[in-house]
């Protein structure tokens, strides 16, 4: 038993994987949040006919296999892709970089966030917005003092969902960002590598435990904050 426990240690590469996972998930979630709020608002309150199309596009990553999403991203951001060529002019390379890992996670998790935010905003009674306007609040004022606070819970739920999804992101990440220890090798990629190595089971299991613990912590924190919203 003691042997097993001493074996459950993390190598520096593993610690780097955990750190990277957190970094990528945080960045992708935080960067996506303003866009998620904007899209959620548009889909909840917008009246244009293009709504259905935009909703379809946003939901695509949810129904496509992640590797397909990754491949499409590779085609766009790769050195031969439209966006890739443009970014190359500024010396920015997306493929096989941390940026690529963040983009892959952001794209894959975005529909989850938007969905949650949209539902939360639809639940906001439009009357409150009308009232605030008649009391002298302009559009932005009303947005920040009425719409956002009333949908804060849904926004936060969307962020948690996306964060959790990002921690487990594999398919799109491995194709767009590659498996680069210290740069893009997140926990799922590290575990996958270990599963190909005979004798790597112990390391794989250790990382699995870390992954489970992380997810658990996030769940608890998320529940806690959710309850605080309820009371407040």
């Amino acid at each position: 038993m003691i042997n097993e426990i001493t074996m459950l240690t993390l190598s520096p590469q593993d610690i780097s994987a955990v750190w990277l996972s957190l970094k990528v998930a945080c960045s992708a979630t935080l960067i996506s949040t303003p866009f998620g709020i904007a899209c959620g608002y548009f889909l909840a309150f917008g009246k244009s006919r293009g709504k259905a199309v935009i909703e379809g596009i946003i939901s695509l990553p949810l129904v496509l296999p992640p590797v397909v999403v990754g491949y499409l991203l590779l085609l766009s951001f790769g050195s031969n892709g439209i966006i890739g060529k443009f970014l190359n002019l500024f010396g920015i390379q997306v493929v096989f970089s941390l940026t690529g890992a963040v983009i892959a996670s952001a794209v894959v998790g975005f529909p989850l966030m938007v969905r949650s935010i949209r539902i939360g905003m639809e639940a906001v009674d439009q009357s409150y917005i009308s009232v605030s306007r008649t009391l002298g609040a302009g559009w932005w004022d009303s947005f920040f003092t009425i719409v956002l606070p009333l949908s804060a819970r849904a926004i936060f739920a969307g962020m948690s969902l996306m964060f959790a999804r990002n921690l487990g992101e594999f398919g799109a990440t491995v194709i767009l960002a590659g498996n680069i220890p210290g740069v893009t090798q997140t926990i799922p990629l590290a575990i996958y590598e270990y599963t190909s190595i005979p004798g790597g089971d112990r390391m794989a299991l250790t990382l699995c435990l870390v992954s489970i613990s992380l997810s658990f912590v996030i769940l608890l924190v998320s529940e806690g904050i959710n309850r605080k919203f309820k009371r407040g």
Partner: protein
Amino acid sequence: MRLNVELKKRFKDFTLDVAFDLSSSRTGIFGPSGSGKSTIMNLLSGLELPDSGYIRLGNTVLFDSKEKINLKPDQRNIGVVFQHAHLFPHMSVKRNIFYGYKRIKPENRRIDPEDLFEALGITQLLSRDVSTLSGGERQRIALARTVLSNPRLILMDEPLSALDEGRKFQIIPYLKNVFNNYGIPMIFISHSVLEMRMMTDDVIVIEGGCIQQHGKTEELVKKSWNRGLECYVNLINLGSASPYKDLFRYNWGDISIILTEPPDGEENFFELDSRDILLFKRHPEATSASNLLTCTVTDIYSCGNRVRVALACGNEHLIAQIVPESVRELEIEKDAMVVVAIKASAFKKVF
């Protein structure tokens, strides 16, 4: 206040086409559900856009489709009190009340909050939680919130409709208080004749998206504007009362009348059906009615197959409804004197 309005808006199954000029500071818009009352309110406040027309309040043009002027709701300074108070659920009562107030520059704030709270009787509600308030309390808070945002005009869209009968009319003294003290012009929208009579001087009658009538509230009521009303009901505002045997004596102007109902505060509204007023040519020796008043006929007019007689009793006025034969029998004509008998129980308390 002067409000000049011309509005046209087409909906799926109904078109709104109205034009009116208002100069009274207590105007009502009256009509059945679906007649367009709330639409007018939404168009005036800027929450909805008319297809064409103009809105001019005083010297300011709020909307003009030809000149392409359209002020946003937050720029119009028109306050709205809705049927449901719509107090912001994520804010305390205090934050709710001061929401509009905070958005006015300090030099432009005309109204003292403490005074207003007293006028509305809500000082003790300030520390309460929004979710614990009753319907009537919520409406009073909503009114405070609206008044503190310094509006030039307040629109009240069926503010009493969501309250239950008993409480409804308890709020009216508070509302009248506010509008009397602060002199803010008001447009009161409702489908209740009674509310109209109590809150407004002028009224616009609207149906099917068009204006049917526009005039003084009491005049229209007398002419039985509401097709559902078969007879005229007098609305009498009495002050306080003192006990009289097992009844109550009220002061009505300089006349005292006896009622069975006890008073409730300083202002008491009673309804007196015009058919419950008996007319005598001469003073009857004795009757079972507690009230016998000597009045002068000021006007006689027919209404359907009945006749209405307008009476002046001292400085007050009543309308009685009788059959045409009685006019001949009692020789009722303008300036004639009649004796009016009313039972103490005929007066029905409004609230």
